[in-house]
Each structure stands twice: as C-alpha cells, then as structure tokens.
C-alpha cells in the first residue's frame, strides 16, 4: 500500500479528515469529555538533540522526531494503553508526562497543573510504575524501600502504615516485605514497584510495561491485581505503555497506537478493529470436502478475493481461510464456485480479526486488503 493510502486509512481510524492532511491528532476520551481531564497532553513533540561539551550540534530538522504532535486526554477513572512497536515513542511520551523529559514543543497538564511550570505539584499527582527492577535500593528491605519513597511523597508514618499494609495484603507481599530486596523474585519486585507507584494515592498512575519479563502466572496475577485496584479507586486514571496487546485488551478502556512518534490510531480496541476491518476485508473459515482438489486455486482467481489459504485436515476435510472484500458479493461468488465445483460445504464461520493482525497492519501501513491484489490470492 502506498504512503497516501496508508495515511488515508490511519486518518479514518483516528477520525480525522484526510483532506486536511496530517493535522495534530488528538486521542480524546469518548464518554467523559465534559469534566477536567486527569491528564491532558497537547500537541507534544520531541526531537532529541545531543549536546557535547566539545561540539555544539544543532537540531537537525530532518532528524526523525521521537514524538510528533501527539495529543491525548485521559479522564478520571480511565485506563488508556499506549501501544506501538519498539522505538515508536511510548516510553518517551510516558517520560514526558512524568516530567522526566522536556518536550520540544507542546504541553502536559496533570489535573490542570502544567507539568513544566509546576513540575513538583504535577509530580505529586502522579505515580510511576517502571519495569526496571533496579529502581529500588537492593540492600534495603521491601519495607525500608517503600518507607523511603513514601517519605519522598510526604506521607506521614500513619499514612504509610495504613496504605502500605493494605497494598501489601492485596498483593500478597506482606510476608516478604521485611526481606532484603535483592532476594525478591521478578514478580515480587514488580509488585513492589506497583505498590510504590500507588502508595501516594496519585490521581494518575503511569505504568511502563508493568509485566515485562514476568512469567505467565505472575503476569496474570499482576494484571488481575491492577484491574482489582482500579475498581477500588474509580477516580484514579491510568496510562499504561505496553508491548503486550493482550494486556491492553484485558485492562484498557482505550488505546492509542504510536508509530515512529506519530499517533496512528486511537479508540477502544473493538473500535480500532472494526474501523480497520471496514476498510479492509472479511475473513471466513470454510470447512469442505473437495473432490477435485483445486478449489483454492479457482477461488483465488475470483474478484474480491484477497487471500486464500488451504489446510487439509486429518478427517478428509479441507479448511479454506478466505479474506474477501466486504459486502458479501465475494463470499457469494466463492460459495457458488465451490458448490458448482462439486465441493460439499460442511461449515462456514466468519472470523473476528485478531487485534495483533490489526496492530501489525497499522504499524506497517500495509493492511492485508492491499497487500494482495484482489483476484490474485495465494491459493493452496
């Protein structure tokens, strides 16, 4: 797919008028636009300029920007996922929101506080959960670590005790909290990082890949716990940068997808999938008995057929995976051809396109609908 068509697709997905070109894209919260957002990111761009004491380098306008004109609003109680391939700008965006990095242009507000004019006030409203297990003091116990970070947030002893106990109980870390941090497993370290992020009861919690490098069991535990914690604090907003799409599907109300620093899609996962599918194809799995053996080849030549995959099964049935243009005409034509060719159709099922397929296609700017020219599918 050409760049133009790719842009058109992306613009449609983010609800943008393609004729206006690549205007600043804004991922707005859908249902709660009236109140003040917990997080407001306005046209943030970031271009890294390396400075040397020996040589002064100027910003190169042609150098790729880490972020381009990204806007985002997160309402109280929402959980928004930031998705994108490696190097897309997810962590850069998160670090800008966390005031650890200054944007080249644009503005970030947390509960109305400008993150760059009032960084300390903004930081007091946010908590960061990193995936970096080195972000604790290894010689200290879990409790000593938590107490230290609680003091940084100005918590009194009583506040610390109450909150830490509650969080430790719900995460199951209470028994291990007086052990040195260096003896913790990866899952325990991650739980401690989450407790630290939530200890100050921030209005906004930022997660940077909270389940990276965890085993499936710990991953599930952490996700369940985040979901549970979210239900208990309905006013708390969450932004989670992750590479794990199923994590976003499980946890997030909305996601935004970044690629090469630009926002290429946003909405609920179903909305993104639906919009993308509307502009691309339907997928059907048809189980049949093929007496002649060349049906896939013949179907692939039909107009409106993008791709055909044929997989023979042990039971004598053949499964055809068809990607067809939307509207039903291509499906009717394919069915007719199969029946006329003597095949017996045992089962036909419309497939829900996996979000990982949608994600890959969006990032590559190359949805399968355009990857294969209609009528020239890869049969058999």
């Amino acid at each position, binding site marked *: 797919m050409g760049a133009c068509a790719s842009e058109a697709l992306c613009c449609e997905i983010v609800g943008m008028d393609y004729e206006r070109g690549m205007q600043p894209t804004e991922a707005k919260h859908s249902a709660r636009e009236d109140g003040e957002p917990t997080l407001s990111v306005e046209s943030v761009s*970031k271009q*890294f*300029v*390396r*400075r040397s*004491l020996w040589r002064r380098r100027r910003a190169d306008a042609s150098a790729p920007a*880490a972020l381009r004109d990204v806007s985002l609003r997160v309402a109280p109680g929402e959980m928004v996922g930031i998705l994108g391939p490696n190097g897309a700008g997810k962590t*850069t965006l998160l*670090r800008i929101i*966390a*005031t*650890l*990095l*200054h944007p080249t242009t644009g503005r970030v507000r947390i509960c109305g506080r400008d993150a760059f004019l009032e960084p*300390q*006030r903004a*930081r*007091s409203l*946010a*908590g*960061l959960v*990193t995936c*970096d*297990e*080195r*972000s*604790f*003091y*290894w*010689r*200290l116990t879990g409790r*000593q670590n938590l*107490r*230290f*970070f609680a*003091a*940084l*947030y*100005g918590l009194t002893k009583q506040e610390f005790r109450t909150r830490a106990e509650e969080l430790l109980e719900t995460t199951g870390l209470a028994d291990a909290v007086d052990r040195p941090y260096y003896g913790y497993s990866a899952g325990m370290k991650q739980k401690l990082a989450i407790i*630290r992020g939530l200890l100050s009861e921030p209005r906004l919690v930022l997660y940077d890949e909270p389940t990276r490098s965890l085993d499936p069991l710990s991953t599930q535990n952490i996700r369940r716990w985040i979901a549970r914690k979210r239900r208990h604090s309905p006013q708390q907003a969450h932004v989670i940068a992750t590479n794990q799409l199923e994590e976003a599907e499980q946890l997030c109300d909305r996601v935004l997808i970044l690629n090469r620093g630009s926002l290429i899609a946003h909405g609920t996962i179903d909305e993104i999938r639906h919009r993308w599918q509307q502009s691309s194809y339907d997928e059907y799995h048809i189980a049949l008995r093929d007496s002649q053996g060349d049906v896939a080849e013949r179907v692939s030549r039909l107009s409106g057929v993008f791709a055909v995959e044929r997989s023979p099964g042990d039971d004598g049935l053949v499964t055809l995976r068809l990607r067809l243009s939307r509207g039903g005409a291509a499906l009717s034509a394919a069915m007719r051809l199969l029946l006329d060719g003597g095949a017996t159709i045992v089962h036909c099922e419309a497939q829900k396109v996996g979000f990982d397929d949608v994600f890959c296609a969006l990032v590559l700017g190359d949805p399968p609908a355009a990857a294969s020219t209609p009528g020239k599918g890869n049969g058999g």
Partner: protein
Amino acid sequence: MILAWEFFKRDAVTALSYRTSFLVQLLGNLLVLGVFYYVGRTIGAAEIPALKDYGGSYLAFLLIGIALTDCVGVSLTTFARQIREAQMTGALEATLMSPVSLSRILIYSSLWGYFFSAVRFVLYLVIGAVLYGVRMSDAHVTTASVLFLLVVLCFAGIGMAWAAVVLLIKRGEAVMTVAGYLVVLLSGVLFPTQVLPEWLQRLAELVPLTHALEGMRLALLQGQGFGPLAGTILTLCGFAVALLAGGLLAFNASVRATKKTGSLTEF
C-alpha cells in the same frame, strides 16, 4: 527533617550492609594516620621556621591537614558520586518522579557521607591527641567547628558544580583526581604555603581550603578564637555563599539541559 532522616537512613543501612568494605575503609583511614605519624616523627626532629605560627610540630600540622582534606574530599565527590550511583543503579528515575526537587535530593543524599567524614575527622584528632601526643588542650573547639562547617559548605558548592558536569559528561573521575592533587598542592595540606613560589601563593589564596586549614590549625593548636580569626571566617563565608549559589545554579541548569537531551538517567 523526616525526609532528610530517611535519606540518611537509606545510605547508612546501605553502607553498613557491606560490612567488610565498611571496616576495611575505616582501617585504611587509620593506616594513613600511621604512615603520616612516622613522616611527622622523621621531620619533627628538624626545626621548621614556617611551622612556628602553629606551634612548631609537623605531626600536628600534618594531622589537621589530612583530617580536613578528608572532609573536603567527601564534599568534592559525594554529590557527583550519588548522582552517578543513582544513574547506574537505576534508582534516579524513581526518585526524580517524586515531588521533591533534585537539589534537595542531592543535598540529603550527601548527609551520610558528611556524617561519616565528620566522625573520621574527630577520630583523626582523638587518635592524634591520645596516641601521638599532639597537644590540643587549648583548642578553641567552637571556632574550629565553624571553620569546619564553612569549608564543607564551600566545597559542597564546588561538589555540586562538579555533579552538574558529571550529569553532562557522565564520567569524570580523572578530572576530580587532578583537582584533588591541585588542592593538596596549593592549600598547605602537607606543607605550609609559605614554601610555595609567590605566584602559587597568590593562587592558593583562591582555594577555600587554604584559609580553612590556616584557621583550623590556629584554632586547634594555638587556641585562637573568633576575634583573631574573624578575617578568615568572613573570607570563608564569602566563598561559601558564592560557591553554594554557583553550584546550585550550575546543577539546576545541568538538570534542565539533560531533561532536554533525554540523558538525565543515562550513564
């Protein structure tokens, strides 16, 4: 205060958890004293006119020089080391996410280092007085304490400025080593500054440690108080204000620059 205490506790627990390293470090300090004791005894027999103002004992002269230089060394390096360690251990980002300013974090992070250096300073003097017979019975302790505080503040300013540079260049141990030797050469740690050529003596006037050592020796060995040492104290006050302000400004500018380049947590 609670926050300062938490920083102190964090660093104390960490330092004391490496027991062997902690004890060996302490032993090393005592060994240095042993070495200088014999140097002092060897030279002590000779009449040195330049030491007359300080009571004439080279061992006493050396002891105070070494003790104070140790504290100054902590001031010079502790801030940069804290930043570098936090960058390398990965704790810097989590700490910086808190609503506490980086300058405060930096100052609080140095408390354990200062405490430990003050303990060493007192230990040096006590060992010198008890074991080596250095006479400090007339010492004006209050004046000595004020001088100690002032020289620590002066070098804290330089240390912060150095931490600012380390934030930008990441590694700078070699520069600090050279600077340390320069301070030792100019400020009269091992020998009186009067033996230096005149142009070096003028340069030495620009080093706060020169004034602090002069004042400290006179306060501890000759029992001079605030009156006779008012000039030295005022000079050190001037240095302290200028260097602290400069150090903080440089550090904050450096933080802003690294937040722009994204290299704040790089190492």
